[in-house]
């Protein structure tokens, strides 16, 4: 006879407000096999967990159902609590009375009846649970970091410094990412490259860090501790091993190329690096701009190269790498011009976005750090900054706040005034969000010292008049319409996930949210982990964030990765498929549906049966669903368990 305990959590008022927990407990007690049922205000609390432990011991429970919040919140908590009390942790099931009952229903009677049914289903399920032991897996002591921006570099550096080897894969030819494009950083106004360049050099030099730039992750297979990664390296058309980085090729190249790094503000060359301090200091040929690839006679670069490193025949190459953990740090994009017709973005050259303004500000940028407007190179006397261009705009843009714009706009207004002392900055804003150490003070300095004029309101339109741009808006504080004649308009465009982030998510089999940012495993408790074990998140690929937060999160992701790598061996969830060999006919239809190649035939008593590699199996259950005889089972989600749940719900 089973001895099940049911623990119905009030969750403060979260559950009790809608569900009569005492009635749910009474209904649970009436289920054959339930020998203990109690309610408590917070079973997840220490005293709550102790109550469960006490009941396990005193009532000799062999199964526990906790009716509380979603299993994604506290399943692990309650399993650990049960284990401490001597019950196998896999004999614990969670009935989701909060997210899927009390929070979504308001009628007390129906919610209570439903809650009782959900508990009954979990009692039926836990009765068919088996005690399980975690599966031990070896961990390959090397990490992969995808993205060589500040997040990726920080994560790589932390992991390498802790003694493990790291492979960094960067899509661009050089490290640096977005931060390399910036001029100064808020609120301290440190020069961005002054911060970044030493870090880049350290990473490049580190004996335990291997760099693969101009490369992309194409395929990922395996599982935590044992990932297999296929990396494609695009042809650089330059043999980097031979190249000495003299950049004579770039100097002599006759073909201009609008390189992404300058964000439309300046031109590079068809061969070369993105910026002077680039690491690795090795050029690539962008074939779409190269004269030779356009079918013309040129080959100047090949002629001037002192070491004969130019190789027009170079092809895409692939390599397979084995890693134990993956940090995804692919960064962000900004919303493209096409989205902002009313601001004339893309139509008038002097309407630019903030990243372009960074390039104008940058001393290594196209204007040498002098702020000149794109149309005629004139130094703008009046600059209008428009915030929330696409952010906080659920109808036409994105509903979320891009978070960094308030601060960098203040920085831009401040820097502008420094460089153009008689200039006037106007900032159209919705709210100023300056939470952060020294942030609010910085915004105040921009207003007080730099004289920036902050206007609360939306800009209706921007149109050209007499060589200037007329900006029409509303100052909602004074209730008046405002019209500013500007020389330059700068849009704080919304932060988006990097192009290709969704594809990479599919390759990695991790989730993205509705905007395409990678989803964390838990918004509060597991913010740098993904739902796929062994894959971690760093930086703006997960959500908009500034440099300081990015670096902090990168270190956190590194710490999580290190947690795996330093162990050498780890325990995996034993909720995997298993074969009842006596029942298996050996048809092996299961092999066709296994996404992990975890099933192999095995000879048993002169016949063939399916055999599951529990290290490879991820517990998806495709095999169990297609097995007709019922020989293929899935721990935790066996056919009999699911059927028992169905029956309990349908009572």
């Amino acid at each position: 006879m089973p001895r099940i305990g049911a623990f119905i959590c009030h969750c403060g008022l979260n559950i009790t407000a809608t569900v009569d927990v005492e009635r749910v407990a009474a209904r649970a007690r009436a289920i054959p096999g339930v020998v203990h049922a109690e309610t408590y205000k917070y079973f997840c609390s220490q005293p709550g967990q102790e109550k469960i432990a006490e009941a396990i011991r005193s009532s000799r429970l062999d199964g526990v159902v906790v009716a509380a919040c979603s299993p994604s919140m506290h399943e692990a908590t309650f399993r650990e609590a049960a284990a401490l009390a001597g019950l196998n942790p896999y004999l614990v099931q969670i009935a989701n009375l909060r997210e899927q009952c009390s929070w979504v229903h308001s009628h007390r009677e129906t919610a209570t009846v439903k809650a009782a049914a959900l508990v009954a289903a979990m009692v039926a399920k836990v009765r068919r649970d088996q005690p399980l032991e975690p599966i031990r897996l070896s961990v390959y002591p090397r990490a992969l970091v995808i993205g060589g921006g500040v997040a990726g570099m920080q994560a790589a550096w932390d992991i390498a410094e802790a003694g493990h080897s790291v492979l960094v894969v960067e899509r661009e030819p050089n490290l640096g990412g977005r931060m390399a494009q910036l001029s100064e950083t808020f609120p301290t106004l440190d020069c961005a490259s002054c911060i970044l360049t030493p870090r880049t050099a350290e990473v490049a030099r580190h004996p335990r860090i291997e760099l693969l730039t101009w490369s992309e992750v194409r395929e990922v297979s395996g599982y935590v501790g044992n990932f297999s990664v296929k990396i494609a390296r695009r042809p650089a058309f330059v043999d980097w091993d031979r190249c000495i980085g003299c950049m004579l090729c770039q100097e002599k190249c006759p073909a201009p190329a609008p390189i992404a790094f300058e964000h439309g503000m300046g031109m590079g060359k068809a061969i070369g690096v993105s910026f002077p301090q680039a690491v690795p200091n090795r050029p690539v040929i962008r074939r779409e701009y190269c004269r030779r690839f356009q079918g013309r006679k040129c080959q100047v670069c090949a002629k001037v190269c002192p070491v004969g490193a130019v190789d027009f025949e170079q092809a895409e190459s692939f390599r397979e790498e084995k890693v134990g953990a993956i940090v995804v740090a692919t960064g962000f994009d900004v919303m493209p011009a096409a989205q902002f017709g009313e601001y004339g973005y893309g139509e008038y050259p002097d309407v630019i976005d903030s990243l372009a303004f960074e390039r104008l500000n940058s001393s290594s940028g196209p204007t040498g750090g002098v702020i000149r407007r794109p149309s005629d190179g004139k130094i703008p006397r009046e600059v209008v900054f428009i915030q929330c261009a696409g952010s906080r705009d659920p109808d036409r843009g994105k509903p979320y706040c891009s978070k960094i714009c308030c601060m960098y706009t203040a920085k831009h207004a401040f820097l502008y005034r420094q460089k153009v002392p008689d200039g006037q900055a106007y900032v159209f804003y919705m709210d100023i969000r300056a939470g952060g150490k020294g942030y609010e003070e910085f915004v105040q300095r921009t207003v007080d010292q730099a004289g920036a004029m902050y206007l609360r309101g939306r800009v209706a339109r921007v149109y050209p008049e007499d060589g200037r741009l007329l900006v029409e808006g509303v100052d909602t504080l004074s209730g008046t319409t405002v019209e500013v004649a500007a020389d330059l308009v700068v849009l704080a465009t919304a932060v988006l996930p990097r192009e290709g982030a969704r594809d990479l998510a599919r390759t990695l089999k991790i989730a993205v949210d509705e905007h395409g940012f990678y989803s964390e495993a838990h918004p509060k408790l597991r913010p740098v982990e993904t739902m796929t074990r062994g894959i971690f998140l760093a930086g703006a690929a997960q959500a908009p964030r500034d440099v300081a937060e990015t670096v902090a999160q990168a270190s956190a992701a590194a710490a999580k990765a290190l947690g795996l790598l330093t162990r050498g061996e780890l325990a995996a969830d034993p909720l995997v498929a298993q074969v009842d060999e006596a029942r298996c006919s050996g048809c092996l239809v299961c092999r066709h549906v296994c996404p992990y190649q975890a099933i192999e035939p095995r000879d048993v008593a002169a016949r063939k049966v399916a055999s599951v590699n529990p290290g490879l199996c991820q517990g998806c259950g495709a095999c169990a669903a297609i097995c007709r005889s019922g020989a293929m089972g899935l721990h935790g989600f066996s056919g009999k368990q699911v059927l028992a749940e169905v029956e309990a719900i349908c009572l």
Partner: protein
Amino acid sequence: MTAQPKLVGFACRWCSYAGADLAGTSRLEYPASVHLIRVPCSGRVDPTFVIRAFQRGADGVLVAGCHPGDCHYASGNLFARRRFALVKRFLEYLGLEPERFRLEWISAAEGRRFAEVIREMTADLERLGPNRKLREDP
């Protein structure tokens, strides 16, 4: 009040179950008809689970998984799509009303969509009345 229809839902833990959780955290109200059974993947759902629900008195059954291409296990929902395309037609062939069985793609971000599907399906089931098919003589 009249008895609610009974709707049994099989939800993949990565997408649809999480989407239902999101509906909860977003406090999106929907009918209490639905009872979700958490499964690792829509590809885990054996059609005999579905028929069992109808046998035992469910008025409707929902199988919900990640959108095609987004499966946590890469392909589970694509197997489910094939399987339940057939099963759905087969149940209709046996005389069951089409509204009583649905396969839906609901991502972890689509709490709103989850609530909407439940509202829609519950309204359909209320209109059809209790299901007696696959259980009782006509």
